[in-house]
């Protein structure tokens, strides 16, 4: 699986959304991406890339696109 596929899978599986919904997807834009769903998403991303995100980054992960920017800090190329 490519890194982008792993990233997309984390979103799709934890938030129960289709890949077509990912572009532009933001926190709280779908019911499943609430405060609790966000933690599941973060856990899935950390698991997928074997990283541990800093608190500021966890809070900043407010959209699909923002998540990609954040992962660059952890040397994950998508």
């Amino acid at each position, binding site marked *: 699986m490519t890194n982008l596929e792993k990233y997309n899978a984390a979103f799709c599986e934890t938030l129960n959304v289709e890949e077509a919904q990912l572009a532009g997807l933001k*926190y709280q834009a779908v*019911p*499943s991406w*609430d*405060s*609790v*769903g*966000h*933690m*599941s998403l*973060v*856990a*899935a991303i*950390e*698991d997928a890339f074997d990283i541990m995100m800093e*608190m500021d980054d*966890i*809070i900043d992960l407010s959209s699909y696109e923002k998540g990609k920017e954040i992962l660059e800090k952890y040397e994950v190329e998508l």
Partner: protein
Amino acid sequence: MIEIDKRMVYESHGYKFKNFVCLTEEEKKLVLEWRNSPEIRKWMFNSDVITYQSHSDFIKSLEKRTDRYYWLVYTPENYPIGVFDIVNVDPIRNIAETGDYAKPQKFGDGFYFLRECLFFYFNILKIENNYTEADVDNDNIHSLNSFFGIKYNGKKTTNQEGDIKEYLTCDSFTKDIFNERYKLTFRDYLQYLKSYRND
């Protein structure tokens, strides 16, 4: 279990629990708005939209009841975040059924809200045992419940005018089990989620 004072605003680590019978009109409307939102009512036993009149009548009926209590919960930053309730209160067996719903505004709100509601239940209301149910499809709440020590040991099916729902139930959650887990943070929960997902 303490004798619950419906007029008292209970406090727990900065969270405030305001009984429904003391709510302002604005607060009652807010609670109804939350309760009627699609993402909350789909998980409720009664998933119909509730009218303001029914809601008002229900709140009024709580004045005299001693078997169920509802609170609007405020965060330490003083914004309303959710509703916590206890029903089927049995002071002899020292057990009640808990329920909650939340409208978190920021990351972490939902986790800390549930954690504090359970602390309030066990350590301020001093109820030793807890019964809880959760819709079988509500995956987010299952992982959170499991983290706090709730282990489902039963199942229940309801049929409300053809609307069939299945619930997972737990009647063995105690204060001792929860208090061990109260000190854990959401970073601990993130770690827990990774193993929970892989099970």
